[in-house]
C-alpha cells in the first residue's frame, strides 16, 4: 500500500511528519502547478469547482508516482463537496488507476471509524506511537501558522519587496525537514528572528483587510491567485479567517466531540443567516459582521459555481455592519490580470476612504 494525499497549502508538511514517524510508504505529489490544474480540469466535469479540479490533478499525479491509497481530509458537509471523493475515485478508476480514495471526514464515520482507518494505514502501529506521531504533526502545523501570522504582519511594511516571501519559503522547507521537537523549536526561533530583522518602514500604517471564504481557496494560494502576497505587495496587512491548524483541529478533533470553534462567528451571522448552508457561507457572513469595526475591508474568496459562497455574497451587502467587500471568484478560466485590477482598485478605495475619514476628524477637532 502506498499512501498519498492531495495538496492544500502546507498540509503536506505535517502529513509527511506523521507518515515518517509511523513508517508508512507514501508519496507527496508535486506542489500545485499549471500541470496539476490542466490535468484536473481535463478529467473533471466542467461545472465543478476549482477545489475538485485541483485535488483531482494532485490525485492523478500521485497515481503516476505509484500511490494506490489516497487520503482526503475533510468532512461531508452540506454542499456537494461531500460527493467529491466518490466521483474522483470513479474518474481515477475510469482512467485505469487501481486506487482507493478514503475520505477522512469525521461527520459520517464518527471518530471510531477514523481511528480504524488510521490503524490500518499505519500497519497496526501501537496507539502510543500513533498519538505521538499526530502530536508531532500538530506541532509542525502550529509552527507553520505562527510563522504565517508573522509573515502577514511584516510583508506589507518590508522595505525591500520579496524579502519576507523568500524567508517564508525557506522556513517552510526547514519545518518540513525538522525531524524532532528540538530541531523544530530551533527552526522556529531562527526564522522568527530572521523575520523580525527584516528592515521595515516604521512610519507605515497599513490598511487591514480580512480574507474570508471557502476554506480550500483560502488555504491553497495557487487556486486563489496568491491573493495574500498580492495584497501584501500593495501594502495591506492580511487577516485570514482560517488557518490550516485551526481547520485541522476543527475537522479532526473538536467536531466529533461537539466542540465548535466557529460558534462565535456563526452567532454573529445569525441575524442575517440562521443556519449552515454548506461550505463556509455561514462563516463568511459572520466574518463580515464580527470584524466590521476592526478591518478596513474584506476580500471574499469563492470558487466559481460554489453555491454556499454565492448565497453569502448576496447576503453580505445587506448587513448593518458595513465595510467594503470584494468577492473574487476562483476558477481556472479567470485571468489573474483582471483580479489584480480589482484588488488595486479595492485598495485605492479603502485608502481614499480612510484619508477622507481622517480629514473629517481633523475638521471636527
Amino acid at each position: 500500500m502506498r499512501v498519498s494525499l492531495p495538496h492544500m497549502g502546507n498540509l503536506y508538511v505535517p502529513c509527511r511528519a506523521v507518515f515518517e514517524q509511523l513508517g508508512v510508504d507514501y508519496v507527496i505529489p508535486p506542489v500545485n502547478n499549471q500541470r496539476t490544474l490542466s490535468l484536473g480540469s481535463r478529467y473533471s466535469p466542467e461545472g465543478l469547482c476549482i477545489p475538485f479540479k485541483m485535488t483531482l490533478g494532485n490525485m492523478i499525479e500521485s497515481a503516476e508516482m505509484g500511490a494506490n491509497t489516497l487520503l482526503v481530509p475533510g468532512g461531508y458537509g452540506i454542499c456537494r463537496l461531500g460527493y467529491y471523493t466518490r466521483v474522483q475515485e470513479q474518474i481515477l478508476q475510469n482512467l485505469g488507476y487501481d486506487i482507493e480514495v478514503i475520505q477522512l471526514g469525521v461527520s459520517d464515520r464518527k471518530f471510531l471509524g477514523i481511528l480504524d482507518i488510521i490503524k490500518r494505514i499505519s500497519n497496526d502501529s501501537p496507539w502510543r506511537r500513533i498519538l505521538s506521531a499526530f502530536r508531532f504533526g500538530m506541532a509542525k502545523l502550529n509552527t507553520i501558522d505562527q510563522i504565517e501570522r508573522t509573515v502577514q504582519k511584516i510583508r506589507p511594511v518590508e522595505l525591500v519587496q520579496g524579502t519576507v516571501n523568500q524567508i517564508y519559503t525557506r522556513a517552510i522547507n526547514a519545518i518540513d525537514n525538522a525531524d524532532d521537537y528540538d530541531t523544530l523549536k530551533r527552526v522556529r526561533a531562527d526564522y522568527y528572528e530572521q523575520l523580525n530583522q527584516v528592515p521595515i518602514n516604521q512610519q507605515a500604517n497599513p490598511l487591514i483587510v480580512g480574507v474570508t471564504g471557502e476554506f480550500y481557496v483560502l488555504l491553497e494560494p495557487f487556486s486563489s491567485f496568491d491573493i495574500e502576497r498580492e495584497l501584501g505587495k500593495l501594502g495591506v496587512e492580511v487577516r485570514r479567517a482560517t488557518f490550516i491548524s485551526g481547520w485541522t483541529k476543527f475537522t479532526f478533533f473538536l467536531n466529533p466531540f461537539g466542540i465548535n470553534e466557529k460558534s462565535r462567528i456563526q452567532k454573529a451571522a445569525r441575524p442575517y443567516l440562521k443556519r449552515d448552508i454548506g461550505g463556509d457561507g455561514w462563516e463568511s457572513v459572520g466574518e463580515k459582521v464580527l470584524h466590521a469595526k476592526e478591518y478596513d475591508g474584506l476580500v471574499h474568496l469563492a470558487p466559481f459555481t460554489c453555491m454556499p459562497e454565492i448565497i453569502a455574497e448576496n447576503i453580505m451587502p445587506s448587513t448593518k455592519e458595513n465595510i467594503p467587500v470584494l468577492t473574487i471568484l476562483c476558477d481556472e478560466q479567470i485571468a489573474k490580470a483582471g483580479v489584480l485590477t480589482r484588488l488595486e482598485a479595492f485598495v485605492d478605495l479603502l485608502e481614499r476612504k480612510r484619508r477622507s475619514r481622517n480629514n473629517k476628524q481633523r475638521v471636527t477637532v
Partner: protein
Amino acid sequence: MKTYLGVDVGSVTTKLALLNESDELVSHVYLLTQGKPIEAVQQGLREIRRQLPEDVDIGGVATTGSARYLAGVIVGADLVKNEITTHAVAALHYYPDVQTIIEIGGQDSKLTVVRDGIVIDFAMNTVCAAGTGSFLDHQALRLDMSIQELSQRALTSRTPVRIAGRCTVFAESDMVHKQQMGHSVEDILYGLCQALVRNYLGNVCLGKEIAAPIVFQGGVAFNQAIIRAFREEIDIEVIVPPHHEVMGAIGAALLVHEDMAASKTASQFRGFDQSEVKYHTSSFECKACPNHCEVAEISQDGHALARWGGRCDMWERVPTTQLQLSEESK
C-alpha cells in the same frame, strides 16, 4: 506651458489626454488599439505632439487601462493606476455630486458607487463579456453595418423584440431566430441594446443601489440607443460627459498632477521621441520551479526594460541586476 499626460490603453481603444496646470483638457486622442498596444501608444504620442505648441512641458505622465504596465514602461510613467480608480476620479472631477458611475468599455463593464464624494463600492463583469462594447461590435459586424449605424437604426425601433442577453452566444442565436421569424432589423437591434442593459444591471450591479446623478462613460456611451435603453430601464436620467470616451486618461492625468504637486519631483517621461523607438516583446516559460510561469518581457536594443507575469517576484525585480540568474533559468 506645463501639462499632465494620461494614457489609457484598453483592449479595443487607446486614449491619451493632456491637461494643463488648471486641469483643463488641452488635447486628446482616441484611436484603436488593434491588438498592438505599443504601436498604439507611439501613434498616440505622435498625434498629441502634432496638436501641441512647441513650448509644452510634460510635468507628469500616468498610465491606466489593461495595458497600463506595458504602456508605463514605454512612456516612463510617474504613476500606473488601475482603470476603476481613474474613471472614478475623472467623473468626480466633472460631477462632484455624482453617486453612480456606469462605465462600459470594449471588454469590461463596471459600476462604481460613490457617496459623499468617496468611492464606497465597485463591481466589474466577471466571467462573461456579454454586456460590453465587443458584444455590440460583433453583432454590428455580423449584420454588416458600422457601430454608428447600429445605434442610429436601433433608435428608430418602435416595437423592440426581447433578446436573450445572458451570453453573447445565446444572444446571437436568439437574434438569428428572431430575424428568421421576420422581425425587422431595427426592432432586433434595439432589443439587443435592451438585453445589454439588462445584462449589465443583472450581472454587474447585483442589487447594488443605483442612485442619481448617474454618469455614463466609456466607448459604449457613444451609442444613443443604449442610453435610451438605460433611461427606460432604470427610469433615471443618465449624464454622458462631453469627453466620456477619454475619462480614464483624464483621471490618470488628474492623479499624476496631484502626485507630482505633492512630491515636487521631475517627471520620468521618456519624451515624445519614444514614438520612434523600436521595442521588442517576447515571452518564455520560467523553469526555476514546477510552476512554469509564463513571463513576458519588453526590451529595447537587446536590453530588457521590464518583465512580468511570474507568480514570484524573481522576474519583476530590476532585470539588469538579475540578468545572470535569469539567463540560467530560461
